């Protein structure tokens, strides 16, 4: 079963599996009932997926998982913002929908594996299965798959991870697939570019204005009209201090209606707490209380070698602050492309 979003990567994933001789069925998940202009989830995108399926001569279905999506992705997204966190809805969608409900459906209907167009690779060696980075590091999506267990990885196929994005597009073009030149979907699928995150949250929750407070002096140095939209570590939109240096958000307190700021230098952190109950380990937790890992703290951030101690990351050099709700993906220091697991950043 191939999860087809209507994008070029999943189109080529289906194509590759078909050419390898597999019996392939395409499925698109209908997740979001509202308007969408991001290149994923709209009726036009479903039409693209359906057209590619028809061009490939494979069976194709659309599954309605809108209720699950609202419950597991949209509502937690809104709730997280209420707390001043910065969630990653794509990670939750992967966790609960793509590799949750859809994996269950695949199993129920007797398919051998679930394939997606993610740029990452599954490596099988003597009964041990690993998730490793895609060949095209600039497009690597192992980060958003870092919550998967080994059992889940055994049921997944990632055909395009061995190719660069350019190669994927070229193959689609060569085979005349409708989606070959379609731009990659950016941003969150249920947030439209016009209203943006603000418009979305205003409709479902509230937007709280607040004061900008200097973390050192406690002085009020400005105001923001939307605390929920401030991300920890953010340098935009908070003004500059007396020396002309950009202010960095280091604490967002929605209840107290304030965001604390300081200089970039003072904002750096040496430790990052992670939520205990959110840890995923592909091959089980590390034996030692303290382990060296490579951590990636944002979808396209540079990986950092650091120490995992209990449920905290300790950095060799201080780094920019990371917002709670973000995912920390861990890679193996001895096998830098291999995912060890992940956890969610706490406050």
């Amino acid at each position: 079963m191939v999860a087809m979003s209507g994008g070029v990567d999943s189109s080529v994933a289906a194509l590759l599996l078909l050419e390898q001789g597999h019996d392939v069925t395409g499925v698109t998940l209908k997740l979001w009932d509202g308007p969408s202009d991001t290149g994923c989830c709209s009726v036009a995108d479903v039409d693209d997926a359906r057209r590619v399926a028809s061009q490939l001569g494979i069976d194709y279905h659309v599954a309605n998982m809108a209720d699950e999506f609202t419950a597991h992705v949209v509502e937690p997204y809104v709730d997280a913002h209420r707390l001043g966190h910065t969630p990653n809805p794509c990670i939750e969608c992967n966790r609960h929908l793509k590799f949750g409900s859809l994996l269950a459906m695949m199993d129920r209907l007797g398919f051998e594996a679930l394939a997606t167009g993610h740029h990452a690779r599954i490596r099988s060696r003597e009964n041990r299965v690993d998730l490793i980075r895609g060949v095209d590091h600039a497009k690597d999506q192992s980060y958003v798959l870092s919550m998967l267990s080994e059992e889940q990885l055994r049921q997944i196929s990632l055909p395009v991870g061995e190719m660069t994005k350019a190669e994927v597009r070229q193959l689609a073009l060569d085979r005349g697939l409708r989606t070959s030149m379609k731009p990659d979907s950016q941003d969150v699928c249920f947030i439209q570019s016009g209203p943006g995150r603000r418009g979305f949250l205003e409709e479902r929750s509230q937007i709280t204005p607040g004061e900008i407070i200097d973390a050192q002096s406690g002085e009020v140095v400005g105001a923001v009209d939307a605390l929920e939209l401030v991300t920890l570590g953010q340098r935009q939109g908070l003004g500059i201090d007396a020396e002309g240096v950009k202010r960095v958000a280091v604490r967002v307190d929605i209840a107290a209606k304030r965001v604390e700021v300081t200089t970039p230098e003072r904002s750096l952190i040496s430790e990052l707490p992670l939520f205990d109950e959110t840890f995923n380990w592909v091959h089980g937790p590390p034996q030692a209380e303290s382990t060296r890992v490579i951590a990636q703290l944002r979808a396209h951030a540079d990986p950092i070698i650091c120490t995992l101690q209990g449920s905290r990351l300790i950095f060799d050099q201080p780094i920019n602050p990371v917002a709670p709700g973000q995912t920390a993906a861990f890679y193996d220091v001895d096998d830098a492309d291999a995912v060890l697991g992940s956890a969610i950043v706490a406050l």
Partner: protein
Amino acid sequence: MQRPSLSPEQSPSIFFDHAAGSPLRGDVAQAMAEALVGLPPNPSGAHRLARRTQGVLEDARESIANALAVDPREVVITGGGTESCNLGIFGVPSPTAICISAVEHVAVREAAVAAGAALGVEVIELAVDRDGVIDVHKAVTVIPDGALVSVMAANNETGAIQPIAALRKALRHAPRTVIMHCDAVAASPTMALDEIIASCDLISLAGHKLGGPPSCGILIVKSGTPFRPRALGGGQELERRAGTQDVAGVVGMAQAISDVHFEIETGAVESLRKRRDRLQALILDAHPTVRVHSQRVDRLAGHLHMSVPGVVSEDLLMLFDQQGLCASAGAACASGAPRASHVLIAMGVSEDDARGAFRLTLALSNSDEEVDRAGEVVIRSISRLKASQE
């Protein structure tokens, strides 16, 4: 754990989705191909060839009018069933309210909501019972004088037949002056429409449900019915629907209507009903907990609408599709994903049950052998999904 697919090779198709449209009948295709050989397509013109084309169009119109026992001037050609339904709703200039049943097809429902908003009048929903049938007496109490009433002849999902003649009679008796529109699209392939046509002012029909061309729909507009057009321009169809008619399509439509009329008059539809009943029995024998919707009331002869507890439509349809059985979920959104149908919800079916609904619609072209095979596919698929629940 790996389970083998139920049918590794491409199995032959069993088409049990006639409610979505039946394949073009052979004689219809032939009539359409021969309709305008050597003639221009436009029946409007000041020359002999246009008049010949117009002759073809009017011959077809008369044939349709005869079959439906209406006057040819009451037959308005549209571009399909949805347009006919929209026109039936929007075409009535000043209703005091718009009353629709809770189980109308979206082509009526959406049009009614929009027309109500545009005119600033209330849209009143006529409730249905657990079998999906309106209560005539309750309806009469909520329908105001001067209203536009739209109740379908039979439901496209469940096949449940509505008491149209009884409703009209009760309204006359009340007395209530209303304009009655009827979406007869789903009913037309297997149900005689005499009573419907006698009772209503506006009746919608669609070509592709009859094995005719999808390009063609009909709105019967009884003479004397206040009416205004939507499509404006050349004033065709006596100023009721502008646009050059698809004359070959109308010829096809006339042939399809004639074929269906014959099938109904000669009682061929009864053999269809028996096949449907046999299929229903096969499935219920093997899986007694399967719900059959509207089975207690009069239903269209080819309709079989069921829900399997604890199972979603997607799973069933995928397994059916793998084995060549073409069915539908009964209700889908624009993307094609199944959704809980408003028809079932209006009947009091739980959201869970509504999400597990599937619809099989048979036609005279389906054989006993297909019924046997389809029965096996359905039984096997339900068994498999039940097993995976454990």
